[in-house]
């Protein structure tokens, strides 16, 4: 090979390497963006199929605080206020707010609960103890770790605290069973404190059978779900609540 051809070959190789170095980061960003879009559309489809929100458009629309992850302070919660038609019945109301919480915020990165988790049943005992039964996905799809599991439970308890004064404490079941931990870290054998203030006596608890969750939701109710554009985050980040174990 003559020096001239060698020079041309090396020059060509350098050009290819430089072009690849410039192009690969761009390609990587495009792939990531495409994957994110696909994930969001899949989640939207799953949400429409599996997350019926038991909202009656005839109910009074009230400002509802939902606690999702903060996008500014690492591993903390932030209250997001939405207007929802909420029932006066504490059990129905709890289901409505928890289903909205499960549906997640607009930015899926800020969700605290897995997108495929479902609320199977919700009961409220006369002493203010609530029992929330979630599908197995809550335990299997949540990122493993103390911080992520604590954030998930706190988003549930703080959302109930802000919207359903009747609920004093919460017991979490997974598919109807008491489990030792959520995903290997957080203790679910006890109950979590929700409200420390005495519950108002005007609203009576009304336990509902698990089947009511799915059957009671007409397709038209989906229109009552607030549009993403109406979400307005509060300024103060959420404060983590302390769980307690049963006596």
């Amino acid at each position, binding site marked *: 090979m003559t020096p001239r051809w060698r020079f041309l070959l090396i020059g060509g190789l350098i050009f290819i390497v430089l072009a690849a170095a410039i192009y690969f980061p761009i390609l990587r960003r495009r792939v990531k963006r495409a994957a994110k879009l696909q994930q969001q559309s899949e989640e939207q489809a799953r949400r429409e199929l599996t997350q019926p929100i038991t909202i009656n458009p005839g109910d009074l629309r009230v400002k509802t605080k939902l606690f999702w992850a903060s996008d500014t302070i*690492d*591993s903390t919660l932030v209250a997001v206020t939405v207007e929802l038609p909420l029932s006066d019945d504490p059990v129905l109301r709890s289901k409505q707010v928890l289903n909205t919480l499960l549906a997640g915020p607009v930015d899926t990165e800020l969700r605290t609960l897995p997108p495929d988790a479902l609320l199977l049943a919700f009961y409220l005992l006369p002493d203010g103890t609530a029992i929330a039964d979630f599908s197995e996905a809550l335990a299997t799809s949540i*990122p*493993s*770790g*103390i*911080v*992520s599991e*604590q*954030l998930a439970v706190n988003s549930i308890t703080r959302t109930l605290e802000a919207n359903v004064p009747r609920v004093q404490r919460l017991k979490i079941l997974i598919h109807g069973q008491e489990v*030792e*931990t959520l995903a*290997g*870290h*957080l*203790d679910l*054998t*006890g109950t*979590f404190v929700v409200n420390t203030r005495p519950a108002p006596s005007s609203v009576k608890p009304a336990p509902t059978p698990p089947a009511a969750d799915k059957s009671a939701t007409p397709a038209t109710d989906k229109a009552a779900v607030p549009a993403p554009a109406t979400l307005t985050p509060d300024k103060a980040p959420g404060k*983590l609540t*302390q*769980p*307690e*174990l*049963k*006596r």
Partner: protein
Amino acid sequence: MALLCAVMVWPSQIPSQTQQPSPGTPPATPSASASQGGVAGLATTSFGGQAQQAGLNIVVLDPAHGGTDPGARGTGGIRESEIVLDFAMQVRRALEQQGFQVVQTRHGNENPSFDDRSATANAQRGAVFVALHISSTGLPGTARVYVNSDLPPVADANGMIPWDRAQAPFLGLSKTFGDLVQRFLTQRFKGSPETAQTASVRQLRTTAAPAIAVEISSVTVEDRADLDRMAPGVADAIARGAAAFKPSYVVPTTAGALP
């Protein structure tokens, strides 16, 4: 529930919390503690043995998960159960340099139950418990210390503490220990919280000793070396925290004394 009727913890092993070192307790500074000559002066030489010298001498290290439970998993094949075992080796060395005896709940790829791990700690006298975790979330390069949330009052009519509430008398000590370790971690890893957090961590609830869980963020790093680089800092912070906590931890010789 099986735990409720299971083993009870004798309150005679429960320490009192003091702010002043007891007579004969070594000073808190790392250099002074290190000068005590490791575990040479201690009577505790085997599992379940009792220290003749009251106070903190033993650190029970608990690398979380293991066996069929890999813990948190990263996209790059990072497994929490493997990394915490490597972290434990470095933490162990740092603690031994500070003069502590170290007992580990696991040395290989096995997965003792929560109760087995607590039993390892509860069989010691004058010990603290440190669980090591790597999270799936959180700001990479930060570290958080957790102590157990409030537990209901302890001790039944016979003065015994139920196994499933063994941590209750130690919550104050755990918070003191956790805050110290968190402070040293935050000095090293910016963005970490200033004080220890509370959470109902299952592993800590049945541990009858000052107990903390240290969770490092996170398995989401692209290169495992990013986590490995944190190990010396984590080990140093835990060792310095344990040394600083030592004067606060005095095990009373009187049976039945509570913190």
